[in-house]
C-alpha cells in the first residue's frame, strides 16, 4: 500500500512540475537584466517600471475590465430573465431554445468569432458604426449569456413552485413574489453565472480577436507582444497577473475553508 501511495505522490509531483515550471521560468526571467530569455545576467525591476509606463498595455487592461464589467452585468440580467421565462415554457419550445443556447458553448470559438465578424461587416452596410468597443461588448454579452442561463437553470429546477403560489396566495403581486421569494432562492446561481461571465470575458482571446476592430483588449495586446517577442515586459506582465490570480483564489479558498469549519461546528 505504501508503494502505491509513494507512486501517487511522485505522479502528482511530476504533474505539478509540468504545469508550473513554464510559468515559474517566465516569472524568473522577468527579473533578468538583459533581454535574453534563457541566460540570467543580473537582477532588475526595470521591466516592471517600463510595463507600468506602457500606455498600450494599461489602456488594454482598462478596456478589458470595462468590457468584462458591462458585458457580464448585461448578460446576467438578460440571462436570468431568460432562464426564468424559459422555465415556464412548454417542453418543446424549451428544448428548442436550450439547444440554441448551447451553440456558443459547443461551437469552436473561432467559428463563433468568424460568424460574428461576418454579421458585423454586413450590418455596417446598413448602420453607421465602427468595429471596436461596441462590437466587443456585444460579442462578449453573446458568449457570456449561455453560462448565466446554465448556472441559473438548476436553481430554478430545484425551486418548489408551491412557494411561489403560496406567496401569491398571501397577497404578493407576481412581481413581489418573484423578487421576494424566487429571486433570493436562485441568487447563488445568478452569482455563479456572473462570476463565470466575468472570468470568461477577461480571459477571452479568440472571439475578441475577430470582433475587436481597432480596440485592444489585454489578450490582444499580449498577442501583439508575443509576435514581436523581444521585451521581457511580457514576463513582468505574466508575473503580475499570476500574483493577482493567486491572491484572489487564495482569499476565496480561505473563506471557503473558514465557512467549512463553521459548518462543522454546527
Amino acid at each position: 500500500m505504501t508503494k502505491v501511495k509513494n507512486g501517487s505522490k511522485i505522479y502528482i509531483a511530476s504533474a505539478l512540475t509540468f504545469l508550473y515550471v513554464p510559468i515559474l521560468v517566465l516569472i524568473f526571467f522577468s527579473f533578468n537584466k538583459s533581454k535574453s530569455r534563457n541566460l540570467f545576467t543580473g537582477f532588475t525591476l526595470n521591466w516592471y517600471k517600463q510595463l507600468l509606463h506602457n500606455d498600450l498595455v494599461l489602456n488594454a487592461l482598462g478596456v478589458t475590465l470595462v468590457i468584462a464589467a458591462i458585458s457580464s452585468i448585461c448578460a446576467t440580467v438578460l440571462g436570468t430573465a431568460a432562464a426564468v421565462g424559459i422555465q415556464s415554457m412548454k417542453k418543446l419550445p424549451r428544448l428548442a431554445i436550450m439547444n440554441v443556447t448551447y451553440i456558443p458553448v459547443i461551437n469552436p470559438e473561432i467559428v463563433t468569432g468568424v460568424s460574428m465578424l461576418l454579421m458585423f461587416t454586413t450590418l455596417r452596410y446598413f448602420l453607421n458604426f465602427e468595429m471596436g468597443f461596441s462590437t466587443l461588448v456585444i460579442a462578449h454579452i453573446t458568449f457570456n449569456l449561455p453560462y448565466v442561463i446554465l448556472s441559473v437553470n438548476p436553481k430554478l429546477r430545484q425551486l418548489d413552485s408551491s412557494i411561489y403560489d403560496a406567496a401569491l396566495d398571501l397577497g404578493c403581486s407576481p412581481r413581489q413574489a418573484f423578487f421576494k421569494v424566487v429571486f433570493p432562492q436562485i441568487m447563488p446561481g445568478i452569482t455563479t453565472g456572473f462570476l463565470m461571465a466575468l472570468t470568461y470575458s477577461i480571459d477571452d482571446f479568440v472571439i475578441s480577436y475577430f470582433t475587436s476592430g481597432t480596440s485592444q483588449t489585454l489578450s490582444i495586446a499580449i498577442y501583439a507582444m508575443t509576435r514581436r517577442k523581444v521585451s521581457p515586459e511580457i514576463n513582468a506582465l505574466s508575473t503580475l497577473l499570476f500574483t493577482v490570480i493567486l491572491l484572489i483564489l487564495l482569499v476565496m479558498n480561505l473563506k471557503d475553508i473558514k465557512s467549512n469549519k463553521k459548518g462543522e461546528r454546527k
Partner: protein
Amino acid sequence: MIKTRIVSLPYLVWMAIFIVAPLVMVCFYAFTTPDGALTFDNLSGLGRYMPVFTRSIWLAAIATVICLVLAFPLAFIISRMSESKQSMMLLFLLLPMWMNFLLRTYAWMSLLENNGLINRLLGLVHLGPFQMINTQGAVVLGMVYNYLPFMILPLYSVMTKIDNSIIEAAEDLGAGRLGVISRVLVPLSMPGITTGIIMVFVPSISTFIISRMLGGGDTLLVGDLIEMQFLGNAYNPHLGSAMALVLMVLVLLFMSLTGTSSDEEMEDMLI
C-alpha cells in the same frame, strides 16, 4: 404564466440576431461567390486543404489521448484524498488555467527555442541541441499543456462519486488491479471521459494560436487557414466560411459520436 414567458423575449431576440443569424451568414457565404451567385466551388475547393484538415484532426486526437492517459490516474488519486486535501490539490492543478492562455503558450515558446532553456540545459550534459520548436510535437505539447485541466475536472467530478467500497468489493471478488480499472473505474467514469474528450478535442482541433506560436509555418491547422481568410493576407471570407462550416460539422459529428447533450450533462460539464 404567459407573462413570465415574456421576460425571455429580449434574450430570444438577442440570440436570433447574434447567434442564429451569424451562423446562417456563414452558410450563406460558404455557398456564394463575392458577387452573390450560388456556387459550390468554395466547398469543393477545400480538397486542396485536405492535408491541413487531416493534420488538425490527427494532432488534436493525439493531444486528447495524451490528456486522457495523463489525467485519468491524476483525477483518481485526487478523488481518493481527504476532502480538504482534494480542494487544495484541485486548486493547485487548476491555477495555471487561470493564467492567460497566450502567456502560457508563450512560456513554452521560450523553453523550446533552439537556444532556449531546455536545449541549454541539455547542452550542459553534452546533448542536443534538438529542434523542438516549430515541430508537430511542440504543437501537441502546447495543446496538452493548455487543455489538460479540461480533462482533469470532469474526470475528477465523476470519480469523487465512486465509493471506495465498490473498488474493495471488486478486489474481494478477485479482480486484479487491471480488472478494477477496466471493469469498474472506466465504466463508472464514462460520462466524465466523454465530457473530457470533447472539452479537449474541440479547442485543440480549432486552435490557431498554439500552431502559430509553437508550430512555425509548417504545421498550419484549420484554425490558421480560417484566420487567414478573414483577417490575414489570403482575404477570402467565402472560402473561410466554407472552412468554418466544415469545422463546425466535424465538431458536431464528433459530439454526436461521443453522444452527450442532455441538459443536465451540459450543466454538469460547465459548472
